[in-house]
């Protein structure tokens, strides 16, 4: 059955969609366009070539050849294209490689699957794999990925899970319908039904509006946009300020809380200088002491340089109330362990945090150096790099010049002097819009010093680095301890998002070095609703009553299953061999004798086929067992004819002869396999 043109286009479009999903984050725009054109072209050309008489290998060679040609052309282009602008070379090479590779690959695949239906499964796997690839981060029902979809759903008040499920299932079903062969009308009907079903599920899914806060209003998308980062880092967007703060997580402390004004819940650090600002180190070589991965299944552990005598170990449990991109933990988290969500309707995710918590004041660290001797030059350079603006060094020199002469040269004192300057002179304000544009840190620091935490943190880090002190910006949440209740649960609100500097002190590790400007135009944040905090803490500690029965986790009885299936299999084997033996020694009637011979044939893979007459079966095997033909005749004479004494007498002898001939004509290994074949008789017909 040849596909109609519309179906060919639809299939091509489907494969294009898969290609786009695969290449979206990898290819340049021209490469993407070339890949789409190549895929669609392959589908159309394959349709045209469907009847061409070529062998399987030819298609594969053709496809691989086209892909190689693309690679070669791109290589030639980049080797001899030095006189061309680099962007042109890059994009042309990308377009060539992707266009030709996709064309070759899909041409071969489409042709193969039009010839051998089994290859449709490969096509199906490609398409479904693309969707699965896009949804791969959507695991454990904890994080709703891909974010562009889940964010859209959240912002429309729809549960993302049904949206993702419907999309995934629809994509798979549509692909299966399109790629696997079916009659055209039935396919069309099924597709319409699927479409309507999908819409229905979406409509139904829209009914239960969520009571959890919406993620995109919380400003927690800290790692999504690279441009204008400082602005996006600002969690307290002005237009949201008149709303009450949204709770985003509750932390349950399992130990007594050390004396502290602010509890810092760190989520990420930024130490890599790019242009005029700091970003998270993309290489992963630095900041390896900060856990960034979500603990999916097994705990995430990191090595921290925190020295134990200055720290205390803290064990906390975190319960996220909203979808959150990165995890955060109090102090310096060392290990994140996923725990069962006690109340999935209330919490998005739950995990335990083991962290180091600094318990000594910074004054106790005077006299210590900052850059450890064991650091590599690269590490040292990484943490002390600051923008090539001479004003940073000038300012920091001026600040450290004024310190008490007893402490000249002490890095900690230098740092304190910088902190003092920023706290005294700085003015905390969320209203200042002049800080947008290029180099907002310099604008802030060498301007009127009006800014908020991100500016203070960056300014402090750059000043520290200009003095050769390793420092980085940490982001997360800073919770004022005065404003919380006495309970062991700490409620974290969206408006407590914060950025603060960390500096490295030898023999201590990273030290939280927050700048708290003395002047501010922000009203003091309201006291936390202690009832809410306590209630949520309760909820986190124990599961809701209606899910109590789930508290004992179901353990799969592997041993029982294993032994059970073993017993079942061996029982079946014994039974099968028993049947085989009984039938093998069938005597007394021509039917049993003949059946025994048929069993022997089935054992070596020569049963009668469905719809084949006894005579044809015998003729088919005449070369291997010539006596089988007269045996079959005698058997049929007895079965269909009169009771024939002569035939009756012959059956036993002929059966013996047939068996002997079969033994002689069957290779030894096959005979051995037939001897141990427990289910041969099952195929006797």
């Amino acid at each position, binding site marked *: 059955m040849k596909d109609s043109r519309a179906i060919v286009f639809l299939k091509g479009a489907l494969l294009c969609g898969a290609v786009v999903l695969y290449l979206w984050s990898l290819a340049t725009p021209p490469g993407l366009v070339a890949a789409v054109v190549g895929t669609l072209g392959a589908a159309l050309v394959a349709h045209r070539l469907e009847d061409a008489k070529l062998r399987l290998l030819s298609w594969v060679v053709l496809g691989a050849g086209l892909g190689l040609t693309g690679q070669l052309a791109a290589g030639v282009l980049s080797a001899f294209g030095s006189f061309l602008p680099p962007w042109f070379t890059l994009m042309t090479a990308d377009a060539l490689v992707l266009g030709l590779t996709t064309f070759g690959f899909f041409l071969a695949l489409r042709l193969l699957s039009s010839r051998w239906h089994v290859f449709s499964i490969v096509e199906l796997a490609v398409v479904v794999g693309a969707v699965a690839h896009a949804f791969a981060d959507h695991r454990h029902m904890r994080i709703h990925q891909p974010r562009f979809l889940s964010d859209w759903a959240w912002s429309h008040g729809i549960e993302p899970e049904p949206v993702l499920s419907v999309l995934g299932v629809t994509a798979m079903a549509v692909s299966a319908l399109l790629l696997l062969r079916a009659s055209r009308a039935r396919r069309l009907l099924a597709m319409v039904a699927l479409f309507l079903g999908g819409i229905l599920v979406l409509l139904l899914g829209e009914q239960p509006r969520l009571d959890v806060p919406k993620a995109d209003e919380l400003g927690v998308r800290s790692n999504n946009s690279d441009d204008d980062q400082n602005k996006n880092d600002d969690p307290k967007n002005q237009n949201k300020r008149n709303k009450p703060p949204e709770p985003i997580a509750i932390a349950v402390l399992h130990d007594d809380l050390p004396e502290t004004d602010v509890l810092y819940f760190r989520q990420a650090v930024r130490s890599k200088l790019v242009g005029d600002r700091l970003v998270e180190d993309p290489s992963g070589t630095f900041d390896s002491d900060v856990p960034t991965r979500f603990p999916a299944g097994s705990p995430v552990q990191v090595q921290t340089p925190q020295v134990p005598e200055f720290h205390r170990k803290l064990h906390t449990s975190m319960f996220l109330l909203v979808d959150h991109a990165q995890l955060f933990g109090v102090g310096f988290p060392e290990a994140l362990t996923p725990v069962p969500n006690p109340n999935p309707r209330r919490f998005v995710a739950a995990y335990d945090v083991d962290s180091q918590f600094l318990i000594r004041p910074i004054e106790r660290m005077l006299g210590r150096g900052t850059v450890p001797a064991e650091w590599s030059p690269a590490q040292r350079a990484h943490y002390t790099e600051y923008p090539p603006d001479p004003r940073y060094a000038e300012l920091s020199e001026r600040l450290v010049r004024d310190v008490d002469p007893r402490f000249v040269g002490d890095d900690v004192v230098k740092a304190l002097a910088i902190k003092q300057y920023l706290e005294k002179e700085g003015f905390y304000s969320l209203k200042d819009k002049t800080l947008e544009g290029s180099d907002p840190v310099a604008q802030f620091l060498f301007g009127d010093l009006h800014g908020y935490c991100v500016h203070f943190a960056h300014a402090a880090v750059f000043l520290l680095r200009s003095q050769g002190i390793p420092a980085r910006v940490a982001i997360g949440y800073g919770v004022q301890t005065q404003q919380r209740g006495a309970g062991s649960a700490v409620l974290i609100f969206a408006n407590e998002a914060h950025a603060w500097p960390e500096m490295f002190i030898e023999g201590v590790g990273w030290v939280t070095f927050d700048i708290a400007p003395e002047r501010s135009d922000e009203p003091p944040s309201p006291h936390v609703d202690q009832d809410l905090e306590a209630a949520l803490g309760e909820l986190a500690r124990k599961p809701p009553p209606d899910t109590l029965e789930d508290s004992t986790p179901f353990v799969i009885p592997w041993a029982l299953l294993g032994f059970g299936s073993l017993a079942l299999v061996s029982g079946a084997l014994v039974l099968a061999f028993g049947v085989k033996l009984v039938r093998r020694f069938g005597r007394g*009637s021509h*039917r049993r004798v*003949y*059946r025994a011979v*048929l069993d022997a044939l089935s054992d070596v893979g020569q049963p*009668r086929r*469905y*719809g*084949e*007459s*006894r*005579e*044809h*079966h015998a003729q088919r095997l005449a070369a291997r067992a010539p006596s089988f033909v007269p045996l079959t*005749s005698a*058997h*049929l*004479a007895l*079965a*269909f*004819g*009169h009771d024939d004494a002569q035939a009756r007498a012959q059956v036993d002898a002929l059966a013996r002869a047939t068996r002997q001939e079969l033994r002689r004509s069957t290779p030894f290994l096959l005979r051995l396999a037939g001897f141990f074949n427990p289910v041969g008789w099952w195929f*006797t*017909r």
Partner: protein
Amino acid sequence: MMTTKDPMSAPLSTLDEVRAIAARLRDRMRYDVIGRDDIIELVLISLFADGHVLLEDYPGSGKTTLAKALGHAFVEEPEDAHGIATFRRVQFTPDLLPSDITGVTIFDTTTNVFTFRRGPVFASVLLVDEINRTSPKVQSALLEAMAEKQVTVDNVSHRLGDLFFVMATQNPLDSVGTYPLPLAQLDRFLFKLTMKHIDPVSELQVLKTWGHPRVAMELPKVHRAEVVAGRALLREKVFVSQEVQQCLVDIATALRDTKRTRQGVSTRSLVQAIPALQTRALLKGRDYVSSDDVEALAFPLFAHRLELMPGVNADALVRDALRGPVDKLARSTIGVE
């Protein structure tokens, strides 16, 4: 000329004797018609099964030669009491009238009585050429003859011979100005045989032997009465088991129940199939009907009786319908007794 024993004096008693008669007929026909052994066998089966044959093929493919060979394989006997000739041939044309084949009553002026003049239908082997070229009126006149072995003219029924065997031909392609046989009429034919062109080797053989003196005259001939006696004997002696009958019913059910046919096969076709199967078993040297016979005869027996839905291939349909019943039949031979 070698003569055979007088069939009246020593009636047939064993199947081997019937088989010998069939072999004599076959040998003579094979001598005259080269490269058509399969068709000759089916014609013989039809002859012994008391059925009629519709041959469908292209002009000049040897239909008439085949029919004549059969006619000439019988011993020329003086027209018996019924006045039945051994072999007659009628060319059907649109202007033919029923009386042209059945015969007419004419007034004899010398004796002043009406006498019946027999038409060509009063023959043991009747070749009806281009049966679809004549009007339904003539076709249905032939129908009575085929079904009842008698013709009725002026309210008087005249018996045809016991051996009455019709071989009709039609051209499958040249259908302009024809009256295609209705299904009811097709159902009267035991087999519809489609003759393919013979293979090149046989064709060359035909050219070589054409016009040479025929040694076939030396081969033994057959008495018409022998065939009639053979029919009766094989019907009695060749065993048709319950399972084989069940298989036939299963095939008929499969052909009726499928959505690919508008009309399945008739019960008459099953009734007619039994002697055909018996004859084939006999020709194959058996005294019982086996699944092999069912498989071999299913297509010529059933394919022409089906009214198919558009686009359905009768060959494939019969093949598919056979599969289940034949499998069941085969299974029955090793099942519990």
